[in-house]
């Protein structure tokens, strides 16, 4: 036994260096622990959606790099009825699933109804407009009609139906073949298998170890350049960096900002970055003193050193932004009026009745960047005489308090769920009552910021079919929240990914999960 063990160890030690990544294989190092499963009805995490984006498709898509321009997906064209309630989609002919079955209207109807029936938590994105399975009807083999509860702007319905997950189209024949009486929607089977029509097939997933995708040669847009994609679980960013340096991976997905900086001018590597359609903000509970006073909230906004946070703490992994619709999204209001002006902040605080300041607890999760931001804010507000006590806690505990409106002051982040301003206007600006009966119980509600006029405007904007009018409505909503809201928006985070320069054609989408690898190729 001992001889065997020693022999094996010696064998291991004596072996020559291992091979290099084949040219037709793309290797991504990433944290994959977030992935729960690949059933489209349940996909919600960004990274899971990014992986699923490679093998599932939806009715509509967006132009590369421009989420204001809708492109055909599985549907090659569509039209809306005069009353703005019924959307008719014409399905592209000849689209094949990975099984070889042809994609038809039956699959579209089955997929959307399946998501509604399973009723997993992401379903709210579809159900807010299409709550009833009967609202999805087959007209003929290549035509589907979807009715909404109220008129919805084209961009909104496209963002919802283009959502990776609940609106992905599955191969109904294949899924039904794996259904059982206990599991009529084959949820168990779809957790680890793919029934899609995208450019790659899911061939293997070993949880928290490896995901292997292989090219689907019959993809309707033509086969991808890369034959195989391997996504390897490397949870530690330092280990991802080592692997990238050694050429053992092509792309490092989760490097820290200071690690990304090391590659700015490094030969053989490139940094790809884009605003991530997220918002990092300070929230002030408008239902509790002292933040129930509008002047205090304004004083805080004028006291924060935004540049110190963006360039000092985030080290360039963020761009300035103070409105809740981020840069690149339809309706973004490019206004950044706030900067550090202690004199002005002091005057506002005095006018609010707090000339000597006050003491307040600032909550943050234990993420290092958030803790550093909290410390910066503590220092900034000390100049106003405000004593800030920082309280760190794990995310689960933090969000428990936040959801229950039990906080006073905190630092947090938010991201767009779908590619439409409605996905941000509702959370940030819709609150007409602070009770549990509220229609939307997200950020404005958690921060007890009641503004019924703005809430009505948010609903009207979602329904507005004229794009120009709609944009003006979002500008107005953002201005109101910017001036009087319960937030000090600090920045928009940048999503940064580092890769070897042999990787070509990689485009990182604002919404990470829209990043497609179909056009990616390698030169070495």
């Amino acid at each position, binding site marked *: 036994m001992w001889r065997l063990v020693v022999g094996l160890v010696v064998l*291991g030690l004596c072996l020559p260096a*291992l091979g290099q990544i084949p040219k037709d294989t793309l290797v991504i190092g990433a944290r994959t622990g977030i992935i729960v499963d690949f059933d489209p009805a*349940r996909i919600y995490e960004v990274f899971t959606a990014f992986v699923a984006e490679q093998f599932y498709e939806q009715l509509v898509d967006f132009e590369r790099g421009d989420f204001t321009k809708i492109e055909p997906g599985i549907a090659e064209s569509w039209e809306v009825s005069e009353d703005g309630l019924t959307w008719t989609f014409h399905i592209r002919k000849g689209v094949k699933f990975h099984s070889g079955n042809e994609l038809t209207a039956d699959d579209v109807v089955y997929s959307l109804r399946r998501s509604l029936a399973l009723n997993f*938590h992401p379903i709210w994105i579809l159900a807010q407009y299409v709550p009833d399975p009967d609202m999805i009807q087959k007209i003929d083999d290549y035509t589907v009609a979807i009715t909404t509860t109220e008129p919805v702007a084209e961009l909104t319905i496209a963002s919802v139906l283009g959502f990776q997950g609940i609106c992905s189209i599955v191969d109904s024949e294949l899924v039904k073949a794996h259904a059982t009486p206990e599991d009529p929607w084959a949820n168990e089977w779809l957790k680890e298998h793919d029934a899609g029509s995208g450019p790659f097939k899911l061939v293997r997933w070993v949880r928290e170890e490896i995901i292997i995708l292989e090219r689907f040669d019959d993809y309707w847009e033509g086969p991808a350049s890369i034959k195989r994609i*391997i996504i390897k679980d*490397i949870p530690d960013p330092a*280990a991802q960096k080592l692997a990238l340096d050694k050429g053992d991976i092509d792309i490092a997905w989760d490097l820290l900002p200071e690690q990304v900086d090391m590659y700015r001018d490094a030969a053989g590597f490139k940094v790809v970055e884009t605003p991530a359609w997220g918002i990092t903000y300070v929230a002030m509970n408008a239902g509790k003193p002292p933040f129930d006073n509008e002047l205090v909230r304004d004083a805080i906004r004028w006291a924060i050193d935004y540049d110190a946070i963006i360039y000092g703490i985030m080290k360039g992994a963020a761009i300035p932004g103070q409105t809740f619709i981020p840069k690149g999204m339809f309706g973004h209001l490019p206004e950044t009026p706030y900067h550090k002006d202690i004199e002005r902040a002091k005057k506002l605080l005095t006018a609010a009745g707090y000339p000597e300041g006050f003491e307040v607890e600032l909550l943050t999760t234990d993420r290092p960047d958030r803790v550093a931001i909290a410390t910066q804010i503590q220092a900034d507000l000390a100049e106003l005489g405000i004593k800030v006590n920082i309280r760190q806690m794990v995310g*689960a505990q933090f969000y428990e308090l936040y*959801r229950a409106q039990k906080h006073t002051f905190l630092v947090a982040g*938010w991201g767009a769920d779908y590619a439409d301003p409605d996905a941000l206007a509702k959370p940030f600006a819709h609150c007409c009552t602070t009770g549990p009966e509220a229609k939307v119980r997200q950020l404005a509600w958690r921060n007890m910021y009641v503004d019924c006029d703005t809430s009505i405007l948010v609903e009207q904007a979602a329904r507005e079919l004229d794009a120009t009018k709609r944009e003006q409505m979002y500008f107005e909503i953002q201005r109101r929240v910017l001036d009087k809201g319960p937030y000090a928006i600090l920045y928009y985070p940048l999503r940064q990914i580092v890769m070897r320069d042999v990787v070509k054609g990689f485009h990182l989408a604002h919404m990470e999960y829209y990043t497609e690898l179909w056009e990616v190729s390698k030169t070495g």
Partner: protein
Amino acid sequence: MVLVVWGVVTITFFVARVIPADPVAAILGPQAPQEAIERERARWGFDKPLYVQYARYISGLLHGDLGVSLRTRRPVLEDIKQFFPATVELGLAALIIGVVLGIGVGVISAVRNGSLVDHASRVFAIVGLSMPAFWLGLLLLLIFYHTLGWLPGPGRLPYWYPLPPRITGLLLIDSIIAKDWFALKSFLQHLILPAFTLGWLSTASIARITRSSMLEVMHEEYIKTARMKGLRESVVIMKHAFRNALLPIVTVVGIRIAYMLEGAVLTETVFAWPGLGRYATQSFLSIDFNAVVGVALFMALLYSFCNLAVDLLYAYLNPKIRYV
């Protein structure tokens, strides 16, 4: 043992649930609407009183059901089955390194008491005991993988190489069954750095206990007698001294086995080793109730079996010890 296991399950069950955080909210993320969280809470039965949840859990446990993980949505037992083999491979390799090096260093240190070798081996042991695993792991990766390029980086196989079909979950065995010799060779190479990282920590404690135990035995009368009989020094040390010094060493090795098999969290994280330690950490961080209790139960069983094995080994090593 039944009492110990019941105690561990009960304490873990209630401690996990008194934490002021909602696991469903943690799993669904900060953006999930309140209604979705409430619906999901009901789906998992977390809206029921604690005693009902406990009764349900114990009833399931008696039928061999550890529940379903909130995070992976799979039966906890299935998750443990998936992650434990990788930990076994790493743990056993580390144990071999730990025992061979630890006993070797300890014996030499005791025999050459007070010499330069003794001092050097004590420094080796102290460094091993005090060095954080994640730091040691990164340092080894930096030297042997990044700078020298002698050994491969994190993971069990090259990143671009697909795993052989899973049969036992033990990559060593699976690659032999699949006759995938490249995977076998590569796996052995990948095993060296994490096994050494984890093994060094054990080397340190085993070396220290071996040294002190050997020093104690070396002063016994029967050692002097053996020497006076003219026996070779190597025979005196290995046959007379070492054998009698073994009992405390076996105790430490027993504890280290359990420690290594429960999964050394930091080593597994740095080396992207898909073992039980990482699974446990992820479960704790996401307050995955069922997984936390399931892993605690599994570890309690593991420790109990290791202790039992050590006790039985005592009787073998020292005939004076008899269990009635």
